[in-house]
């Protein structure tokens, strides 16, 4: 039977470091993905993941369990990402270099069934989405990332962002329309190019 986050948190608070390491194992990938999509840089994202877990570990005695552990972790991560962006005083995304990054084309996790053409197309689309997302204001980008890639509910996003539910919906809708416009402008989006309306 899988141990819940709450149980692992309780054990960690009691001084069981291994339990906290289990939480890290469970959440490091989603947290890394969140940080990467927010910041657009792998090394920054890795630093944020480490900082987020360290902060969480130190603040664990103060965690009252009013929110889910994951929501609490997301909040810490988003705050850290905001700090990184503020400190760097740069656009949240570093412009992807022109041309194809050959080394990036064949990542270790590429499924064997995926042809080279598919890999190239997927990476290409991924880069275009990343570029489109970089144009969004931080709140819209966070909302879309939390919804699209982490499956949070409107209510959870509203709590994380400290705004009304309707604002979350507006941010999602506006964000999606900007991404759509940008993908169309780049002539991208094979999945729905024919179904899109201007």
């Amino acid at each position, binding site marked *: 039977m899988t141990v819940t986050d709450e149980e692992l948190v309780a054990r960690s608070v009691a001084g069981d470091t291994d339990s906290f390491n289990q939480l890290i194992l469970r959440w490091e990938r989603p947290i890394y993905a969140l940080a990467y999509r927010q910041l657009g840089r792998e090394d920054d994202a*890795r630093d944020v993941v480490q900082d987020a877990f360290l902060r969480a570990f130190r603040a664990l005695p103060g965690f009252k369990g009013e929110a889910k552990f994951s929501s609490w972790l997301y909040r810490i991560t988003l705050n850290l990402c905001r700090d990184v962006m503020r400190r760097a005083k740069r656009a949240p995304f570093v412009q992807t270099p022109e041309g194809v990054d050959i080394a990036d084309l064949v990542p270790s996790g590429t499924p064997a069934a995926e042809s080279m053409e598919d890999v190239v197309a997927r990476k290409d689309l991924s880069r275009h989405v990343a570029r489109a997302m970089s144009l969004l204001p931080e709140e819209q980008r966070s909302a879309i990332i939390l919804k699209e890639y982490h499956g949070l509910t*409107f209510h959870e996003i509203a709590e994380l962002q400290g705004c009304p539910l309707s604002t979350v*919906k507006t941010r999602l809708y506006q964000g999606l329309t900007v991404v759509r416009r940008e*993908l169309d402008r780049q002539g991208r989006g094979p999945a729905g190019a024919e*179904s899109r309306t201007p």
Partner: protein
Amino acid sequence: MNESPYCGNTDALTSYLYEEGTAAERLAFEAHLRQCERCAAEAASLRAVRVDMAAWTPPETVLDFRIVREPAQSTSRWGWMSTMPAWAQLAAASLVVGVAAGLSGLDVQYGSDGLIVRTGWSRPAGTRPAGDAAASAAAGDDAPWRTELAALREQIQTELSQNASAPTAVPASAGAAGGSEAMSDDAFLARVKQLIEASEARTQREMALRLTEMVREMDTQRRADMRRVADGLGVLEGRTGAVTAQQREVMNYLMKVSQRQ
């Protein structure tokens, strides 16, 4: 003109897209989409954007950090000593006690009142408080330390007389001393000096030995570290080679594709 409350309602459209909201709301919105081409196209278009967005994946990375509890850090200013070997701690402690005893003019007495320890800081040199004199008187000539001191003196004198013929064993003044009391005191002092020198030499030898051991330990550790670094570099080189091979493969593929075109 469409009079449906759902037409152009982005809140409802977003809830529909992300499948949030009640089943009744969903059914009602679907019914509206069947009647409104514009809203249906908008919903399909945004759904397609969502499909495209799934292609955006972060690069693979290694995330292998874990929380490790370090042993509690000593707050004492002498905490660093705990990392020293036991013999070094003992040597350091002996040195500190020796230096402190020398600086303080340590005076240890054992009498009928038990063990008495005094330092020179508590009284001027050469003076004795009244209580001290009384204690000394109370101790009398038969105090154990006096007996022991007398025995030591006799032993040294015996050794000196036995070694009188040896020119290097005792100072020249001691050799001309005969059996007089004054010369015997000089010889006693010389012998004490000799013993102290021997002790110092022994201490120096021990220190040299310990230093050699330390150097040897450090050298062994350094060799082990160098081996680990070399192993790590070997692994790194292996990885770099694999990446290069991958890149070469992709380059070949791209070359073939471009030639076909």
